[in-house]
């Protein structure tokens, strides 16, 4: 049986963990060359005078194994805010036991408690396991905001053969 995990808000002492897990996620997403954040950057963003984001840390046996970074968004038309889930990462040996789902649930509860209206995030389109998990969670894709393309054979078909 899997050891239970806990979720908590990050504290300044977690900053090196945040940096480590952000880099691990960047490797997984094939964006390692863009992962330039340092401990000082993340300390300022999470705990500086104007915090730009919040972070949840997942722990198993007191060891950090997962990270979720989030911030608040705004809609002029509804005048209600949302929470944008910027990053979710769980170390490979700890996947499949519901840690990411618990992170989304925690943030969903938080945005509702705050009077907000939405939980939103991006997913890389090749990440089929993640997309399937998000569908199971009740998320819908904002397809209206994706680029559409018709080319090759489909273009000829569309043009009437």
């Amino acid at each position, binding site marked *: 049986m899997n050891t239970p995990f806990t979720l908590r808000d990050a504290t300044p002492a977690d900053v090196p963990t945040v940096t480590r897990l952000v880099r691990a996620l960047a490797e997984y997403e094939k964006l390692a060359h863009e992962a330039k954040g340092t401990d000082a950057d993340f300390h300022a963003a999470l705990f500086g005078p104007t915090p730009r984001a919040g972070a949840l840390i997942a722990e198993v046996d007191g060891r950090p194994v997962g990270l979720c970074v989030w911030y608040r968004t*705004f809609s*002029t*038309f509804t005048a209600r805010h949302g929470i944008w889930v910027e990053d979710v990462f769980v170390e490979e040996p700890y996947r499949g036991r519901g840690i990411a789902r618990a992170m989304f649930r925690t943030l969903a509860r938080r945005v509702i408690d705050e009077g907000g209206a939405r939980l939103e995030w991006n997913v890389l389109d090749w990440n089929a396991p993640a997309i399937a998990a998000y569908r199971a969670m009740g998320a819908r894709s904002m397809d209206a905001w994706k680029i559409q393309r018709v080319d090759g054979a489909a273009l000829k078909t569309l043009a009437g053969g």
Partner: protein
Amino acid sequence: MSFVLRDAVPADVPVLLGFARGLAAHEGRPEAVTATEADLHAALFGTPPRGWALVAERDGAAVGFAAWSYRYVMYRAATMLYVTTVFVDEAARGGGTGRAIFGELARRALREGCLGVDWGVREDNATALAFYASIGAERRTGSASMTLRGEALERMAAWTSQAELAHA
């Protein structure tokens, strides 16, 4: 003729909401504006604020506004000023007000240490796409989001709205 860009104040809320309704109607979705004056007041002037806004005025009358919040791009450790809404009243369009608003947003982004200014645009809004291209915005691949960064951000920040508008 005077032209001023200033931070929104609580007394602007009814005008901002009217502009938001005008924009939603222009986009063919008037039902999208569900906010009340109380909601908008709480969002912009509550503790903590959830959004920020500036107002463009010509001769003392509001002719447009922009609202924004901030996004944090974790893997780049960068804050982006994210523009949620820009609106210029129809009678005031074509006079450089939109450009002046983006110039002010660019200056604000630089002052606050943001990497850039981002916003979304509807794919079918050709007029807006042409305008955004003219101010140096790039379309980010694979999405309908626009971003102003680096030199384009600096150029926009250097836009001296009053001087330009005096010639408009």
